[in-house]
C-alpha cells in the first residue's frame, strides 16, 4: 500500500475542509482525486506531503506516518503544487539543477527518469522559467518534482489553465511514469480527465462521494439517461425543468442530459410534452452516463 488514509478530518476556523476521509492508493497506481475548487483536494495533498497536520485521523505515505516520520516522507515524495512554483528568474536548467542539489542528487544521476519529458523543453534550457508557455512550465515543474526519483508523486491540479494539447501530452507522460513504478496521486477539477486514471475518488465539500474505477463509477449510474435536443436550447432547458416527472436536467454541450423519475418512462410522452411547448426538431436518444453525470447525481 503506497498511500493509506484513514478517517482524516481537517477544519480551518469554522470551515470543514475535510470530513472523515479514508482511502488507499496501491503501489504503482495512477489515482485521481476529482472535484471542483474548494472541495478539499489541496488540503488533502498538503496533509499527505506533511505540510499540514490533520485534526483527526492518520495517514501514511510510502509506509511513513505523515506526522511522526515527516522527514522520511520529504525525502521520498515528489510534489507539484497547484500554483506554478518554480523560480521564474532562474533558467530551465538552473531550476532543475537547484532542485537536484537540494535533494542531494544530480541531473545526470536520474536523467533516465525525466529524459522523455526533458527533451521537450531542452531546446529552451537557457530561457528563464517565467518566460515559458503554460505547457512548458508544467513540464519543467514535473521534471523538478521527479528529479530525485520519488516513490510517490503528488500532482495538485497539474492541468489547470493548460490547453488541450498540453493536457493530453501531460497525461501521456503520467502513463509512462506509472510504468516506472511510481505511484501517482493526481487531482483535477476536470471530469473528462477522470477516465485516464486507474481509480478515482470523487470529492466535494470535503467529503468523498465515491471511490472506484472510472468504468465502474459510470456503470453504477442508477437511471437510464437520455440525450435531448431541440431547436431552442434555452426553451428546452426551461421546459424540461418545468416537466413534473423530471429527475435531473443538465445541459451537456449540444444536448440536455435528462433522467426521469418514473420507472416506466416512455420518451414519446416527453416528446409530446415538448412539442406542446412549441419546440421543434426534437430528438430523444438513450445515452450512457459520464463521470460528470455520476458526480452530479451523487452531489445532488
Amino acid at each position, binding site marked *: 500500500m503506497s498511500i493509506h488514509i484513514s478517517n482524516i478530518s481537517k477544519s480551518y476556523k469554522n470551515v470543514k475542509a475535510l470530513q472523515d476521509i479514508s482511502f488507499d492508493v496501491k503501489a504503482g497506481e495512477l489515482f485521481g482525486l476529482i472535484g471542483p475548487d474548494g472541495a478539499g483536494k489541496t488540503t488533502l495533498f498538503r496533509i499527505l506531503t506533511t*505540510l499540514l497536520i490533520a485534526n483527526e485521523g492518520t495517514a501514511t505515505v510510502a509506509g511513513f506516518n505523515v506526522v511522526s516520520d515527516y522527514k522520511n516522507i520529504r525525502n521520498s515524495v515528489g*510534489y507539484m*503544487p*497547484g500554483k506554478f*512554483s518554480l523560480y521564474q528568474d532562474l533558467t530551465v536548467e538552473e531550476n532543475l539543477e*537547484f*532542485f537536484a*542539489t537540494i535533494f542531494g542528487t544530480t541531473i545526470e544521476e536520474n536523467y533516465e527518469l525525466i529524459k522523455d519529458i526533458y527533451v521537450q523543453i531542452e531546446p529552451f534550457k537557457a530561457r528563464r522559467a517565467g518566460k515559458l508557455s503554460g505547457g512548458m512550465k508544467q513540464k519543467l515543474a514535473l521534471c523538478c518534482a521527479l528529479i530525485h526519483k520519488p516513490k510517490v508523486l503528488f500532482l495538485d491540479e497539474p492541468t489547470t489553465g493548460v490547453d488541450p494539447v498540453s493536457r493530453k501530452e501531460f497525461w501521456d507522460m503520467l502513463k509512462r511514469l506509472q510504468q516506472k513504478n511510481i505511484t501517482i496521486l493526481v487531482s483535477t477539477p476536470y471530469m473528462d480527465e477522470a477516465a485516464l486514471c486507474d481509480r478515482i475518488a470523487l470529492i466535494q465539500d470535503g467529503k468523498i462521494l465515491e471511490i472506484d474505477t472510472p468504468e465502474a463509477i459510470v456503470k453504477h449510474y442508477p437511471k437510464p439517461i437520455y440525450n435531448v435536443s431541440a431547436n431552442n436550447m434555452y426553451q428546452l432547458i426551461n421546459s424540461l425543468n418545468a416537466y413534473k416527472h423530471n429527475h435531473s436536467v443538465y445541459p451537456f454541450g449540444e444536448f440536455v442530459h435528462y433522467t426521469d423519475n418514473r420507472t416506466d418512462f416512455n420518451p414519446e410522452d416527453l416528446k409530446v410534452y415538448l412539442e406542446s411547448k412549441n419546440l421543434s426538431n426534437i430528438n430523444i436518444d438513450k445515452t450512457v452516463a459520464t463521470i460528470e453525470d455520476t458526480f452530479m447525481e451523487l452531489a445532488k
Partner: protein
Amino acid sequence: MKRFIGFIKKEFYHIFRDRRSLFILFGMPIAQIMLFGFAITNEINNVDIAILDHSKDVTTEEIINKISASKYFSINQFIEKESDIETVFKKGKVKAVLNIEKDFSKNLIKEHKATIQIITDATDPNTANTISNYVNAILIQYQKELNKEITITYQTVPQTRMVYNPALKSVYMFVPGVMTIILMLVSAMMTSISITREKELGTMEILLVSPLKPFQVIVGKVFPYIFLSIINAVVIVLLSIFIFKMPVQGSLFLLALESILFIISALALGILISTISATQQTAMMISLMGLMLPVILLSGFIFPISSMPLPLQIISNIIPAKWFIIIIKGIMLKGVGIQFIWKETLILVAMTIFFIGLSVKKYKIRLE
C-alpha cells in the same frame, strides 16, 4: 553542504537578476550619504539678512562690514524704518534683521553699552537659533577687538571649544546614522522580502517538502545579504573618508566586527518579520514602519535622545540601532577601543541572540 551551496548559488541568481533591487541596494547608500553630506545640513551659509541702522556711524559700519564679510551672511538690503521689518520678512527671502539703535557709537563710548537687536524669522526655529548664535559670535569677536584698545576690566568672555568635530560638520554626525539605516534596510528588509517572496510564489511549499532543514533555508537566505551588507558598509566608510574627509579615529577592525554584529542582528529581525508576514508587501511595510522609523526617530541619529520625553528615552533602549550608533560614533569620531563600548556591544550581542532564537523558534516546518 552541497545542498547548502546550491541554495546560496540560487540566492545570488535571484539577487543579480533583479536589476532594480540591485540598483537600489548599491545606489541607495551612495545616494543617502551624498544627500546627507551635501544637501541636508545644519550649517548655515549665505543667509540673507537686512539691516536697519539708526545710527550710521563708524562703529556700525565696521560691524556691518564684519557681518557681510563672513561667509555665513549676505546683506540683502538696508531698510530705513521699523515698519519695513515686517514687510521684508513677509517677502520671505530675508531670514534676519539687525536693528541697530540710534547713537550706537556714542552710547558705546559714553555708557560702555550699546544695543543691537537681532530679529529672526522663527518659522524655522533651528535656523533662527543658529543665525542668532552666529551673529552673536561675530559681535563678541568684534567686541574683543574693541576691548583690546579700550581695555575694560573684569570682562568675561565665554570660550567654547568643540571637541571630536571641531568644524561642526554635520556629515560627521550623519555618516554613522546613514550607515545604520542602510545596514538595517538591506539586511532586514531584503531578507524578509526574499523569504516572503518564496511564500508568495509557492516555492516555499516545495522547499518544505524537501530534505532541506529549516536551518539551512534560513542561513542560505541570509548569507548573501551578510555579504552585500558588508560591501555596503565598506562603501559608506570609504565614501566618508575620501569624499568628506571624515577621519576614522579608532580601529577599522573593531568597526568591521561591530558592523557584522549589527548586520546579524538586523538579519535576525528580517527573518522574524518574514515569519509573521505572508506577502512581500506586508514584509516591506513592517520593515519600513517597524524598523526604519524607530531607527530614524528614536536612535539618536537625528534627535538627541537626552532631549526626548522619558517614555521615549526608555523605548529607545530596545532599539538595536541606538546602541550601534553609540558604538560607531565612538569608534569613528572618538577613536575609542572596546574598553569604552563593551557595554553597548554586549547589549547588541544579547539582542542578536534573542532575535535569532526567536526567529528559529518561529520558523515553521509546516504551512499555516
